[in-house]
């Protein structure tokens, strides 16, 4: 263990802990843009600097590892001026259209501009004529709002390992995109949406996010019901309706989701969704109560078992149910019905 001091607070950290992680331990918040848990630190946004006693320059806290006896200051005039400069530079090359931007309220750049006292940007770079890509079914990409933190590129390449997004151009003409300026629809994108989830601004935003503001949302932590991985996620709920999903940092998914978890939530309020059991009567499926339906199933299963033996029955359960339900179902088939013909669809 190493002894470090953060803003006068003494603490012990494990060897290899970064300054940023140590700050988290004592509840000191450091502004970050390019940093993302589970991604290798890149230190490119230059936002998370802190002062280490005895060091010549300020240090990027996301990539600097704590040393024994380090005395760290997380805010002073120099740090404030440095971070302010970074925000000012990012704003100079940003489409400041916060009024109509779907990220308003949760945009990190917006927040830091406020935190570092920037009311009106002093500098402005001539905007480039980038193409806005709205060809993906679930999200849009507007490079004019991109701050090149590269979280999307790194999550796509290093975590999703899909290698769809990359950088092209250099200097002020650097842009995130796909090889040969492809559109999303023509690329190998699998619409996992992880790039959208990690975008700190409104550059990558779900199409649905146009219809709500972050402050209108309630979040409900839940487990994705699509498969047995058990991804943790937050349902974004506006006025009792699910309007979006954000990945949570669960044990099994560590902040990632797939296309189904991220975007396939519309069945919840879909008119075609079944809300009661249906029993076929006179050739037509008709709504029934759960009691009616269960009675119908029990009667028929007993009849078949008596007439033709238990092996005339087979059971097949859904992987969208929980492991516990699947276990109970298997027990019912083997114990109560008496057949080994039971299976589950979880073998994609």
């Amino acid at each position, binding site marked *: 263990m190493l002894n470090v001091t953060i803003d006068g607070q003494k603490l012990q950290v494990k060897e290899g802990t970064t300054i940023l992680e140590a700050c988290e331990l004592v509840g000191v918040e450091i502004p970050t843009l390019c940093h993302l848990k589970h991604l290798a630190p890149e230190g*490119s946004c*230059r936002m998370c600097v802190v002062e280490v006693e005895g060091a010549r320059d300020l240090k990027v806290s996301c990539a600097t590892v704590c040393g024994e006896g380090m005395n760290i200051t997380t805010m002073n005039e120099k740090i404030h001026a440095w971070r302010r400069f*970074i925000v000012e530079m990012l704003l100079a090359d940003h489409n400041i259209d916060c009024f109509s931007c779907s990220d308003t309220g949760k945009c990190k750049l917006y927040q830091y501009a406020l935190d570092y006292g920037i009311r009106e940007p002093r500098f402005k*770079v001539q905007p480039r004529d980038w193409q806005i890509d709205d060809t993906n079914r679930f999200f849009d990409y507007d490079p004019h709002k991109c701050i*090149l933190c590269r979280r999307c590129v790194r999550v796509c390449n290093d975590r999703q390992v899909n290698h769809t997004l990359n950088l092209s151009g250099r200097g002020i003409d650097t842009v995130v995109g796909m090889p040969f300026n492809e559109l999303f629809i023509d690329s190998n994108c699998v619409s996992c949406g992880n790039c959208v989830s990690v975008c700190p601004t409104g550059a990558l935003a779900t199409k649905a996010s146009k219809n709500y503001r972050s402050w209108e949302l309630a979040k409900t932590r839940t487990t994705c019901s699509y498969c047995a991985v058990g991804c943790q996620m937050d349902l974004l709920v506006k006025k009792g309706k699910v309007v979006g999903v954000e990945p949570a940092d669960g044990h099994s998914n560590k902040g990632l989701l797939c296309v189904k978890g991220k975007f396939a939530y519309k069945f919840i309020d879909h008119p075609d969704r079944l809300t009661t059991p249906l029993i076929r009567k006179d050739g037509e499926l008709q709504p029934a109560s759960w009691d009616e339906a269960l009675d119908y199933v029990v009667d028929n299963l007993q009849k078949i078992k008596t007439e033709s033996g238990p092996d005339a029955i087979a059971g097949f359960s859904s992987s969208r149910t929980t492991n516990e339900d699947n276990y109970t179902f298997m027990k019912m088939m083997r114990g109560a019905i008496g057949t080994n013909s039971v299976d589950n669809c979880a073998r994609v």
Partner: protein
Amino acid sequence: MIRTLEDLREFKIQQEERSRQEKADKQAKILVGMGTCGIAAGAQEVYEAICDELRQQGIEDVVVAQTGCIGFCAQEPLAEVILPDRQVLYGHIDAEKARKIVTDHIAGGQVITEWAVNGGSLLPKEQQAEAEIVNVGDVPFFKTQVRIALKNCGVINPESLGEYIARDGYQSLAKVLTEMTPADVIEEVKKSGLRGRGGGGFSTGMKWEFAHKQPPGQKYIVCNADEGDPGAFMDRSILEGDPHSVVEGMAIGAYAIGANKGYVYCRAEYPIAVKRLNLAISQAKEQGLLGENILGTDFSFDLEVRLGAGAFVCGEETALLASIEGERGEPRLRPPYPAVSGLWGKPTIINNVETFANIAPIIRRGSDWFGSIGSENSKGTKVFALAGEINNIGLAEIPMGTTLREVIFDIGGGIPEGKQFKGAQTGGPSGGCIPAEFLDTPIDYDNLAKLGTIMGSGGLIIMAEDTCMVDLARFFLDFTQEESCGKCPPCRVGTTVMLDMLNRIVEGKGEVEDLEKLKELGENIKAASLCGLGQTAPNPVLSTMRYFWEEYEEHVRDKKCRAGVCTALFQYYIIPEKCKRCGICAKVCPVKCISGDRQTPYVIDQELCIKCGACMEACPFDSIIKQ
């Protein structure tokens, strides 16, 4: 195949014997400087003309050979006629002159003094024919130079391993492998005081020590030959003129740190350097000086060339490594430093061409000898590429501690057309400028840093009175802005904002407040950028602001450019009283914006004028002024 130390000795003796024989058999040798610069100036034609003329005249006892850059670029193409009693260096020759040199000098024994650099060619016209031929080394351009890195450039045929070995080539490698431990080598290099010639000036020996101390395993040694500063060409000249010196230096470095694999990262824009380097590597491999068990020892070392695709930022060591790995050429955060975790995460040493070229001489002649040259904290020599407003454009290798005045006025021959010296830019776009008041400062790492600039890789661009310092700063920033990789916001956006401001200033649209903003931006970009490119990009602006603040003020406050460079800030006028109504100005004007006739004085239509200055140059009566 050279398998042992004995083989190498024998090879050397054979080579020396061969050249002795050559001297005995042949009456003369003609060396043609065939670096990229020479070839661009027409050396290929000169070479062919000499061979052809010799053939036609039936002269067989003359050797014609190519050599690397002789260094005196202003006089290219250059050819040196070497006779037993004297050497004559002819400059500015073409095919026709070459034939005459063969006829008069080789066949007729008559030196053409007026074409000889060590004769009359640099003197005023009337003195040329009577000038005496002096030793080439006594020509002012060469006289105060001390050539260590360039010792073979312009002397040997760069495509001949034999000539390199005859001049003690690979002796240092042999010495290191047979007499020294890696720790001894590092100690020797440390003791020599050699500092990195790529710009940073870090102790080479210490750097090697870091990598040496890493646990044994895969390590790499890399040569940075991605020389990208505008106006810098010393590394190219070394690679073109003496490629084996770099190969040998790298092999010694590899032995010292425990690497078995090396890469030379060379820019693709240097095709001749790449060709000669590849040739040198294959010759060394053929002879067993690279490869498995070199000179019968346990040491194995393989070397490969990798080409850069033209990004300036790939001269930054971590971006260079990313590029070799096949990634986008972008810098990575340090620490970890490459000496600990470099190429593919393995300990890696990166030095530039000139640094490696110094290694073999240090090993052979000892650190004491090397340490005796130069100033207290900057040992040895530095090669400078003299460019800009200077008479003797070329390569000058000078001992550290030489003053700028000596370099510019003694070696460089001063400023053309009697113009006043205004400033010198060192370190290319990452450096700063030194004004006239510091001409007597001895050049070394520390003094240049004190003046707000850097040694850099050795570009030295001379500016005269008619250079606009604001425009100069704008030029360099334009370069770095375009070459920024775009990874961090200070460099990506900051340089663009600064460039926009400077563009406005030179267009006469600047405001007084802009100057403080420029300074503030510059200082912030320097502090906050991720890599060396951004950390130094504002230097040209900050240093010109430091020394030429009044010029900036004039641009924004008075909308004036005293050097008459910023076209938006001056106009050409015809003084009616002085105009003789000859109409020459109207004739030369490319946009026909000057009107007048025999009766009325000529006037310039300022709306249409493109400010080319042709009228002013053409006016025989000096009636046109610029203000």
